[in-house]
């Protein structure tokens, strides 16, 4: 009996046969794998699995504890919901990408060391980028490239941090990093790791990849994307940086940043994407506060958020699927033709807004209560204000302009049945968590001593939300969507890239042209002239000398050759003449010597 099946491998290896399966068999298979994964995660025993040594480093392939199990539980549930939502897709590509994406997210959640974490981290970036590329068209491909570039950059920061941290700490095991809840100052490696994590958590100013890419992804791909990347980042932050003061303030700013941008937004999925930024702000703030209750709150809010945000993306996706439109200025009046979609979307909207009996109520309030217990009045006020903004946009503005409002006479119907089933699954879970929070609380990393349903808490929440609705009714005209886009921090690299291209095309190209002109007009003729002169010197001087010498030798050789007659008497004569000459010379020299 195998004591441990890694859920990540279940998805990653499970993706391999998908392209070879067809029709109903593929559908059954697609649903089967996440279902098995849910069972595997529910039966996991805490412990360490897969210890090994790779290139001199101890690595730990999987570490199972309560924190990883709660994230893995919701990840596998979400994989099932997302797969059901995508069942009608005829092509295998997106299914494969989604499976690899989910598998990599699970790999990060169970990673016991930073190397394993890093490999799955990068896998997630590439698999999810496919879900944007798959949409096709210039806008989506541009957004997907930017998404990939930003994540690869973040990955490089993370890898640099991992190397420095590994050298400093002498171990690559994945755990709390000094500077947060752990004593000691954080070193540069720690900051680089934090930067890599914050980028995936979409903390401003590193948030723009999210609102840039998610609205351009495929209808079914965006549902997966809304669930995994940012929440994996929340998990690793909870693991490595609990109690880091910086995160409290970043989280509070995020919560408001998202809702402020959402007022301006016209694209329905970009509006929802800004609310991911806002909601992840609660989780980041909770991790920053770092008390047991705050980490519990962040974890449970991530759990609830994955389900209701997916439900909201599924609702908006259903509208895009049947109408082909995504701008609020072009939508309206769909409630007559899509009543089920409206009702299911509203369950998600009530859940994200933290209405009593819906999931957000039992999780978001835990973060706010933890901030209160930690005596952080400003954080409490900021997060409460963000709650009002959340209901204003996802609960009122978006459904009003998408489903009600001015009837644009769009041809619409309910989406395919599998999409409705997936939305219903998420909706049931949103309500179940809200009504029976104990089941979720039992999964959390620390024991829970928090009662969400007190009279004061219920009336406070309802007061906050319903008077937000009053503000909405009174300021309805001010909220009319406008046909614009909003500048976010992606401006820097989108315009920056353009400035770089301009620099490459204009000054750099001009300089290059000038250099080549100089070489054409001056240097080349000079070189040609010199070469011609050289040739002349060569031909007339050197060659003439060499040739003359050769001719002289040749002539001398010919004369000498004539001496070689081959007749013995001539040789004998020459020898006698030589001997006489020698004697004559000898006699003269000898005579003079005496």
């Amino acid at each position: 009996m195998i004591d441990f099946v890694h859920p990540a491998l279940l998805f990653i290896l499970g993706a391999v046969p998908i392209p070879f399966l067809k029709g109903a068999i593929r559908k059954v298979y697609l649903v089967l794998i996440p279902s098995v994964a849910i069972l595997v995660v529910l039966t996991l025993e805490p412990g360490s699995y897969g210890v090994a040594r790779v290139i001199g480093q101890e690595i730990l392939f999987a570490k199972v504890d309560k924190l990883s199990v709660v994230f893995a539980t919701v990840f596998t549930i979400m994989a099932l919901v997302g797969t059901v939502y995508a069942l009608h897709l005829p092509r295998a590509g997106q299914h494969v990408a989604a499976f690899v994406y989910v598998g990599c997210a699970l790999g990060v959640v169970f990673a016991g060391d930073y190397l394993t974490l890093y490999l799955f981290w990068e896998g997630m970036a590439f698999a999810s980028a496919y879900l944007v590329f798959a949409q096709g068209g210039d806008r989506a491909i541009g957004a997907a490239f930017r998404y990939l570039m930003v994540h690869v950059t973040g990955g490089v920061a993370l890898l640099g941090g991992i190397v420095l941290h590994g050298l400093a700490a002498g171990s690559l095991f994945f755990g709390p990093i000094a500077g947060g809840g752990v004593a000691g100052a954080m070193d540069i490696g720690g900051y680089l790791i934090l930067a890599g994590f914050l980028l995936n958590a979409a903390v401003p100013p590193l948030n723009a990849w999210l609102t840039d890419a998610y609205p351009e992804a495929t209808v079914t791909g965006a549902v997966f994307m809304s669930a995994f990347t940012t929440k994996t980042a929340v998990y690793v932050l909870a693991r490595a940086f609990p109690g880091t003061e910086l995160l409290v303030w970043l989280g509070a700013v995020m919560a408001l940043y998202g809702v402020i941008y959402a007022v301006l937004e016209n694209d329905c999925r970009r509006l929802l994407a800004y609310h991911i930024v806002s909601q992840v702000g609660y989780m980041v703030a909770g991790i920053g506060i770092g008390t047991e209750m705050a980490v519990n709150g962040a974890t449970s809010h991530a759990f609830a958020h994955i389900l209701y945000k997916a439900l909201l993306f599924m609702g908006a996706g259903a509208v895009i699927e049947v109408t082909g439109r995504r701008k609020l200025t072009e939508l309206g009046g769909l409630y007559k033709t899509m009543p089920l979609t409206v009702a299911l979307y509203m369950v998600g909207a009530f859940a994200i807004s933290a209405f009593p009996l819906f999931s957000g109520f039992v999780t978001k309030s835990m973060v706010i209560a933890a901030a209160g217990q930690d005596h952080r009045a400003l954080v409490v006020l900021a997060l409460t204000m963000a709650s009002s903004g959340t209901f204003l946009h996802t609960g009122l503005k978006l459904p009003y302009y998408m489903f009600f409002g001015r009837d644009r006479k769009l041809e619409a119907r309910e989406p395919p049945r599998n999409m409705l089933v997936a939305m219903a699954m998420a909706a049931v879970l949103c309500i179940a968590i809200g009504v029976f929070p104990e089941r979720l609380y039992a999964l959390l990393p620390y024991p829970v001593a928090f009662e969400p349903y007190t009279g004061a808490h219920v009336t406070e929440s309802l007061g906050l939300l319903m008077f937000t609705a009053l503000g909405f009714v009174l300021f309805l005209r001010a909220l009319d969507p406008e046909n614009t886009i909003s500048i976010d921090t992606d401006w820097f690299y989108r315009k920056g890239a353009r400035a770089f291209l301009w620099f490459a095309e204009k000054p750099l190209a001009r300089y290059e042209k000038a250099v080549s002109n100089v070489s054409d007009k001056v240097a080349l003729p000079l070189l040609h002239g010199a070469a011609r002169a050289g040739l002349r010197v060569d031909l007339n001087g050197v060659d003439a000398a060499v040739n003359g010498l050769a001719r002289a030798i040749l002539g001398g050789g010919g004369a000498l050759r004539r001496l070689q007659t081959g007749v013995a008497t001539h040789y004998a004569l020459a020898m006698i003449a030589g001997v006489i000459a020698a004697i004559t010379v000898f006699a003269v020299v000898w005579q003079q010597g005496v």
Partner: protein
Amino acid sequence: MIKRVVDFFGDEGYARSRRRLFYLVLVLIVVADFLVPREHVEYLWERLPGWSAAYGFGSCVLLILVSKFLGHRVGLMRREDYYD
């Protein structure tokens, strides 16, 4: 059933009853906020019944005003072909 509920919130025919129901809910919430027991209050404002209603309304208005200011006056909102 679901269709009827959705129609109630969409059809112009129900506008009057919708508005009545809405104001009734607002009043009931504020009244209930005065009646519920308050233990473990952390901050002064938590003692004030109706505080959250006022804060919710104020937050909503503030968020709309600040965002529209940033969008129109500071120039965050641009034409759709801004990056093309």
